[in-house]
């Protein structure tokens, strides 16, 4: 059956892109400090923002949340 051309992006690539796009990875602080955050820490932050259990793991529910339609404005205030 002609299915969607599901981008053969791996789950971790999808997660990495999501965490970056919505500001969870590199936080530019108001003081100008640039700090890279580990993926696990970034996942925890995203899970907290979404009101989910903060496992720091890319579990099924987290992955599904990342696929849900949403607003394009980042969740962490890096949006200029």
């Amino acid at each position: 059956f002609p299915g969607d051309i599901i981008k053969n992006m791996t789950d971790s690539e999808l997660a990495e892109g999501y965490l970056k796009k919505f500001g969870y990875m590199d936080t530019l602080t108001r003081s100008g400090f640039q700090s890279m955050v580990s993926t696990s820490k970034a996942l925890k932050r995203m899970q907290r923002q979404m009101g989910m259990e903060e496992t720091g793991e890319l579990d099924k529910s987290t992955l599904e949340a990342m696929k849900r339609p949403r607003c394009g404005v980042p969740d962490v205030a890096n949006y200029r």
Partner: protein
Amino acid sequence: TFEGDLKWDHQEVTYRILSYTPDMATSLVDDAFARAFKVWSDVTPLTFNRLFDGTADIMISFGKIDHGDPYPFDGKDGLLAHAYPPGEGVQGDAHFDDDEYWTLGEGPAVKTLYGNADGAMCHFPFTFEGKSYTTCTSDGRSDDLPWCSTTADYGRDNKFGFCPSELLYTFGGNADGEKCVFPFVFLDKEYDSCTTEGRDDGYRWCATTSNFDTDVKYGFCPSRETAVIGGNSEGESCHFPFVFLGKEYDSCTSEGRGDGKLWCGTTDSYDDDKKWGFCPDQGYSLFLVAAHEFGHALGLEHSNIREALMYPMYSFVEDFSLHEDDIEGIQYLYGRKDGPDPTPPQPNTPSTTAYPDPDDTDKPTDPTTTTTATPVDPTKDACKMNKFDTITVINGELHFFNDGLYWRMSSGRDGGLKGPFSISETWPALPAVIDSAFENTLARKLYFFSGTRFWVYTGKSVLGPRSIEKLGLPNTVQKVEGALQRGKGKVLLFSGENYWRLDVKAQKIDKGYPRYTDAVFGGVPNDAHDVFQYNGHMYFCRDRFYWRMNSRRQVDRVGYVKYDLLQCT
């Protein structure tokens, strides 16, 4: 709110709709946007005025993928829209992804149908006589009927369709594109909607005039399902019934697909011509997404409360209403709709009641809570300490607590460091180690935290010890290490890498917490053992050092507690 509490500096905010989606009638789009603005004008003094030319505060447009700003959309689903916080230029603008299927959220039932002579869907943009069109046009027609082309190039395949302008006529048109007009008479019977009467192919039709016979004009009225603006790979609309793997379908189905998407066949038999199309599901409610985006355009960031409009994920709700979190956020910026602005954050004016006041007639001290006074060693030198249990401001003076003693940096003529004093002589109920403390100047109360307990002093009477869980802190919190008064009766309580917001009046932690300290107070250690507010700055202490942060949450100084705060030489 956004960094710096960005907001419009006027209450009459203007907006302009620069482009439309082909998914909905323009009147519906106008209405959805107007209702989305009303969500916010209902709870603030803001008014929204629509402009039809020139530059408005909020410029609204639909676009796909790269649409002219550094944040491209991503095709169907995923990103639905975005908007910029208040300000000049692109600031305040709202962009909607037109690869989405925009509806009122109830699905296709109210879809406007665009159709060409054989029922195919209109496709945009299309060119006609060298000009590109993104919506229906009456160009080239003497009868001014709006039309569209089913392919990018009108000339080549000579296919075109009529675009009914009124939403109500969601029915197809007749052979020459007239809208169906009801009621009409067929074989002496009156019809007020499409019918399959007189046809053996089951297609529904209508007449364009009240008397079918005389002008023999009639049009096909697609059924609801066909009205679903599905589209196969070539943009044909869905036709029902169709057969898939031997089974007949009279509406879209997700059969055979692993991703649950709805699809349809464009002919009676799916197999032989391999044409199929996606039938959009409910689509996304333009009203709900617009209300969210306009929240950004007014200065709100995302909420982490699922039920709030400003929560980043989309979910359709029938009878929408703002969550208190949305209302609190927008009123923080613009005040309430009627009545005075909410009391602005109180300056931390030092109160005169922080010390037990002998003539205070408050509730008597609970005798079980007093502790024996700690003998004071007057030679104990604060300048020899590397770290204090806690530092806080009481009566406008810095207090340094350590192991049953405290010192205070008094201002004024005979300023300088005073002490040590015995904690238990001044506050008999307190233990020797205080993890943090704050003064609620409005209510003239002093809060002390030690381990998982807290005490509240009002003058000389004390309430406590009580468990910090009574305030709504989770039992995982071992101790409260810092407190920042935030005005409007809110205090931030810090522990480890998290902080919570306490509503002092309600004696309850606000929803949506904890939050990560370093996500909001970037640049300070996220394991500070002490946090306090002093002279309009926030201080985060770790070991001998402090990080000072200004009201814009920028670290503007790092130094030694001993030399800068205790003024040791």
